[in-house]
């Protein structure tokens, strides 16, 4: 060892990689995450990318980031603030300074810290000499130059050599976290499988970064994060969008069906369409439609024809699909609608997260048009809730809206791989060929679902459509009393789902002074903040909802017996107002944030203390 080397054991650490959109920060972040998973850390990641593809180099608008939180303990969020920031240029530094902890290690590519870049980033003073970085451990590494030299001497041309600098960064990080560099080399071998010249050059740069770190004084203290103790078994790192796609595929297999996904590309939902498109080998068919309406319409057609039909979208697309969701409601066909929420209204903040579509999902259609609405709460449990959405939709013969969000969709976490034999059965209410006296609107007496007769089946020809139908027979009907009956049946059918979903859990004491209420993608931050306060002995509990319509049967019980209820959401209070309409007997305080950002543990704790301290 070339210098006096000290290793600090950490329970958890947050690293943020930031650079120009083209700097390869997403790749380095993924490589670092995979390496951490490989050695047994728990982890959570979140990419933070602009809505422009390649905004002007060196500007704040062009900064792309990737945050990874790894731990020896269980990790539930990508972390509020970073312990280590990699900033490839001044803009990346400027955009991320407020997301860095005091005393953090900041690794900068000194080659890009010049007056030209300061101007592009909007710095008036040289940030390296105006004392603004006092208190941080700043590592000024000539990343661009050293990478380029090594890569070019490995035979790459200047332009390609320039793209290897992310591996220099990776090398630094492998040193800083005492990681086996061979894992990084294997990652590159598999990444550039068919391009041996790239493998060779990137490995050389990776080693250069590692060796450089070894020699410099600013990195004489390194960190070690032990594997998680109580997480045993087989794991993979999975994003919310991938987990959603896999949940649908899994549900189809269990139900003996094949997936049909009719969809139109929209940020941040597109990866689900891309993922399903890769799995024709499981019989899945994806149909990239001409617009959002055709996406859902094709899915409704496929549902009529007997597929597990799905459509995926984000807020503006859900608005466009409203009429068609109503058609699925009145034709009582199974359909999964995934809405990966983003900042709104209109185009809003397409790459940022929000929970602004709850009321749209619950009510955003003409007429009495009830849908089952559920929400996933972590990237990995998108698998379970996509599976559940498909199960409920198929077994109850009605559309289900699954709400995820940009934070879950693009974020990833370590996921214990399930086995299909452990997954619950899915039994669509199909009809046997030539069943005598089949009528399309006959119903199961318990669930009230109608039965699914599929074109091609002999003896079951029938017609469905958007006009109101007679109870049982399915003839077109304008009869006033029949309409009342049918609206009631469709409503009742959705309400009855309550008998087939789990009770609402409460994490903590059932009579805690403060009940924190959340739903969907905010789970990680809420459970972390609540657990922290519980460990300090405060009387606080969390009720985090995944089933939104219908609400779990014991919701009233859960809300009882607390001095205060605080509903935390990334919107202006949609779930709070929904609870007020369903359970008006309680008073609901609100914590609302609408910045395109996830909830932070720190800000939640401030709010929780404030309320707890006010309780006499």
């Amino acid at each position, binding site marked *: 060892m070339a210098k006096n080397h000290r290793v600090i054991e950490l329970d958890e650490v947050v690293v943020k990689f930031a650079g120009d959109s083209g700097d390869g920060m997403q790749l380095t972040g993924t490589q670092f995450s*995979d390496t951490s*998973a*490989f050695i*047994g850390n728990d982890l959570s990641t979140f990419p933070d990318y602009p809505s422009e593809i390649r905004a002007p180099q060196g500007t704040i608008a062009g900064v792309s980031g990737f945050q990874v939180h790894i731990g020896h303990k269980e990790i539930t969020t990508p972390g509020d603030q970073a312990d280590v920031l990699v900033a490839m240029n001044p803009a990346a530094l400027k955009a991320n300074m407020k997301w860095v902890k005091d005393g953090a290690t900041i690794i900068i590519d000194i080659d890009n810290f010049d007056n030209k870049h300061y101007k592009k980033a909007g710095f008036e003073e040289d940030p390296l000499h105006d004392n603004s970085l006092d208190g941080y451990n700043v590592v000024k590494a000539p990343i661009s130059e050293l990478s380029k030299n090594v890569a070019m001497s490995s035979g790459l041309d200047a332009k390609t050599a320039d793209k290897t600098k992310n591996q220099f960064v990776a090398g630094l990080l492998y040193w800083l976290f005492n990681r086996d560099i061979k894992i990084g080399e294997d990652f590159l071998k598999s990444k550039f499988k068919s391009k041996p010249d790239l493998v060779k050059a990137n490995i050389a740069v990776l080693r250069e970064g590692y060796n450089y770190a070894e020699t410099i004084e600013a990195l004489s203290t390194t960190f070690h994060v032990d*594997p998680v103790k109580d997480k*045993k*078994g*087989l*794991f*993979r*790192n999975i994003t919310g969008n991938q987990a959603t796609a*896999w949940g649908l*595929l*899994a549900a189809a*297999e269990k139900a003996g069906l094949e997936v*049909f996904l*009719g969809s139109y590309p929209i940020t941040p939902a597109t990866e689900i369409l891309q993922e399903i498109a890769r*799995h*024709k*080998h*499981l*019989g899945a*068919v994806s*149909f990239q*439609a*001409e617009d959002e*309406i*055709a996406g859902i*319409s*094709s*899915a*409704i*057609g*496929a*549902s*009529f*024809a*007997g*597929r597990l039909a799905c459509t995926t979208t984000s807020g503006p697309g859900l608005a466009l699909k409203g*009429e*068609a969701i109503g*058609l699925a409601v009145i*034709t009582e066909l199974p359909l999964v609608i995934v809405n990966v929420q983003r900042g709104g209204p209109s185009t809003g903040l397409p790459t940022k997260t929000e929970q602004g579509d709850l009321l749209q999902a619950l009510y955003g259609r003409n007429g009495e048009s009830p849908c089952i609405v559920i929400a996933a709460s972590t990237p990995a449990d998108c698998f379970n809730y996509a599976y559940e959405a498909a199960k409920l939709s198929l077994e109850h013969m009605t559309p289900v809206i699954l709400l995820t969000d940009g934070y879950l969709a693009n974020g990833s976490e*370590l996921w214990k*791989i*399930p*086995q*299909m034999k452990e997954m619950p059965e899915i039994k669509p209410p199909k009809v046997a060929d030539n069943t005598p006296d089949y009528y399309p609107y006959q119903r199961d007496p318990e669930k009230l679902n109608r039965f699914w007769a599929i*074109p*091609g*089946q*002999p003896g*079951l*020809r029938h*017609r*469905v*459509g*958007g*006009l109101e139908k007679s109870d049982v027979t399915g003839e*077109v009907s304008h009869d006033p009393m029949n309409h009342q009956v049918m609206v009631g049946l469709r409503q009742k059918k959705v309400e009855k789902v309550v008998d087939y979903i789990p009770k609402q859990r409460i994490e903590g004491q059932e009579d805690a002074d403060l009940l924190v209420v959340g739903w969907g993608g905010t789970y990680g931050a809420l459970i972390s903040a609540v657990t922290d306060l519980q460990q300090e002995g405060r009387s606080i509990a969390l009720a985090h909802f995944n089933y939104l319509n219908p609400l779990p049967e014991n919701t009233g019980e859960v809300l009882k017996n607390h001095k205060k209820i605080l509903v935390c959401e990334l919107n202006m209070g949609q779930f709070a107002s929904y609870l007020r309409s369903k359970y008006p007997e309680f008073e609901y305080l609100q914590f609302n944030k609408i910045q395109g950002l996830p909830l932070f543990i720190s800000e939640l704790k401030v709010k929780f203390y404030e309320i707890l301290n006010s309780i006499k």
Partner: protein
Amino acid sequence: MINNFEPVQVATKEDFKLGGPVKWCAGCGGHAVLSTIMNVLPETGVPKENVVFVSGIGCSSRFPYYINTYGFHSMHGRANAIASGIKAANPDLSVWIVTGDGDSMAIGGNHFIHIIRRNIDVNILLFNNKIYGLTKGQYSPTTPRGSVTKTSPDGTIENAFKPGELTMGAQGTFFARTVDSDPKMMREVFKAASDHKGTSVVEILLNCVIFANQVHKDITGKEVRQDNQIYLEHGKPMIFGKERNRGLMWKGNQMEVVTIGENGVTEQDLIVHNAFDPDDVNHYRLVRMELPHYPVAMGVIRSVEENTYETDLHNQVKHARETSKIKSMDDLLMSGNVFESK
């Protein structure tokens, strides 16, 4: 020779009758189309449970309620998109779309061009009465410019779409035109549409007795129809007229109406219709022909074989199933980067 077999008749007209009331106006062209379809379906050889009728919204789109098949009366403009999903989900089904000039040319214009572009094997029956009937008499995208309707009291100031032009523009493989008053022609055209593998568009010039009565009279009127229509048949000369003595002939690169026996013109000089020509330039010319300079073209104007969407799709699925090592969800779950924590 297997090709010489007549399709096995697996259904009769009676099989497709529903028995309930047909709620179109007396004199509506829809009745004739419905009756003709019931005659044609048994001739297609498709088992009755494999036939699906899909419609949008409008007078035309009540069709599925009047015929005993699987049926889906959907949303305004969306029949083509719903049918795309049905056919992609199950290519064995024989899918018919019944739509109108409002449904497919206005609100559903996007889906109309895209189903054609994809060449999904469905049959589109486009009821063109050049008016909004079910909303009671507003102009549609096919209403002739200048027409006075409830929403154009001073005459429309919009150009009219020709469905045939849109079909060609979307790289359509089949376009035919027929009229509601000629059951024989409809039967031939519907059968040809059914036989065609790919998106078949059939424009039916249809009379709305209430809001656009006699809108097609210059084409379909008893006195004028033979002189004002030309029925095109592949491989036959383009000949028409009461006396069967008029025809179309090339003059430079333009088609010109000529009379056999005048100026030395003989039947041999007439253009022979080639519906199978992959180049659609002449088909374009034919769909654009308008009175009074030309007769209006009827019959199968274009019929070209190309790959269909659903065949290519399911070939990809088959290939993927055969070649992928991942045969089940469990295989997928264990594929790629899996980390074991002991």
